[in-house]
């Protein structure tokens, strides 16, 4: 690169004769050194003061704000995550409790129902038995009653038949005694 630079300067110099007109570097001309120094110090001082007093604190504040915000947001996010996890756990506990309760209620009601049915059945059974015995008693009663009325009827029939056949009136008490006798012999067959 340096060789290239030298070559180019030489070429340009040859073509345009410029070094004949003005040789050397303007940088080494001290005419405006004081001026440059003065203006440099002035401008740089102003620049430094306005940057350090005004702009850098602003940028720093904003960067800090952003960092704080991000930190806060992250903290909040993790907090919310914890909260949601806790809630989820709570929910699961509630759910499992509810399930247990449901099972318990299910079993309880089933037992209750069974018991109830059993009790009702027993009551009904008892009632049926009662009714049955009552009915049997009534039947026996009826049978007994029917025997006495059968005796009456057979007495009358016997009295009538005898009257029709012989034309005599037989003693009622003897007929009664005979019918009773016969029926007593045969009543065992129907009772």
């Amino acid at each position, binding site marked *: 690169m340096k060789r290239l630079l030298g070559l180019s300067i030489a070429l340009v110099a040859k073509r345009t004769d410029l070094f004949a007109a003005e040789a050397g570097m303007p940088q080494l001309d001290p005419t*405006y050194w*004081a001026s*440059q120094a003065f203006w440099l110090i002035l401008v*740089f001082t102003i620049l430094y003061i*306005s940057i350090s007093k005004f702009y850098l604190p602003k940028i720093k504040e*904003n960067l800090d704000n952003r960092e704080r*915000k991000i930190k806060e947001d992250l903290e909040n996010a993790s907090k919310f995550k914890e909260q949601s996890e806790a809630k989820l756990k709570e929910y699961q506990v509630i759910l499992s409790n509810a399930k247990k309760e449901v099972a318990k209620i299910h079993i309880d009601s089933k037992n209750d129902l069974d018991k109830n049915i059993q009790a009702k059945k027993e009551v009904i059974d008892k009632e049926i038995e009662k009714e049955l015995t009552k009915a049997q008693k009534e039947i026996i009663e009826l049978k007994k009653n029917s025997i006495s009325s059968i005796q009456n009827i057979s007495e009358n029939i016997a009295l009538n038949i005898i009257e029709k056949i012989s034309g005599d009136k037989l003693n009622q008490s003897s007929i009664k005694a005979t019918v009773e006798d016969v029926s007593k012999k045969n009543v065992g067959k129907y009772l």
Partner: protein
Amino acid sequence: MASNPMQQFTVHKIGPEIKIAGVDLSFTNASLFMIISASIILLFLFLGTRERKIIPDKIQLTAELFYNFVAKMISDTAGSKAKPYFPFIFSLFMFVLFCNMVGMLPYSFTVTSHIIVTLIMALFIFVAVTVIGFIKHGFKYLGIFVPSGVPAVLLPLITLIEIISYLSRPVSLSVRLFANMMAGHTMLKVFGGFVVSLGILGGWLPLSFSVALTGLEILVAFLQAYVFAILTCIYLNDALNLHH
């Protein structure tokens, strides 16, 4: 002559002559471009800090990018003790960078291509760093010239070398920036002259060189501002954290 590649560095007076106590402090094109560069920096920072949003817009983002860039540079090279000097190094970096960049515009003047400008900045840094070193460490600061772990025979020589290198800091710092700027601009001017003198037939090759060099010079403009700032940080680090 307009095609003199060195003529672009000429300083000339603008407006009336200002003389204070016999010293010529006239407003020149150099002063004008210092003010232009500083104004652009201030305008940029004004726009960058006007709306302080959580989600920045482009210009705010750029301003914050510069802030973080310089902040990282300082904390990487000079540590946390250098924090009070952050505004100075930020201003220095911005000023050198914008002077270099404004100098890249055609028909403009490159403030940093003048040895007097860079030398004043370098001397100020040198004096300030030395003063800070003595304030922080007293006479122990002289220990910077005596590296530890050096054989006793070599110690006088090494110390001499260290002293010379320390004293040559302002020279190397200022000449590096000035020479880079001057060489780049001279080269651009020379190739520009080639384009004109070789005409429409032969001018294409130097033109393409010119384009490539412009890109390179923009890189150099940034790089030299960065180097200037980072060397300041390194010198500051020597003064703040005594390693030797």
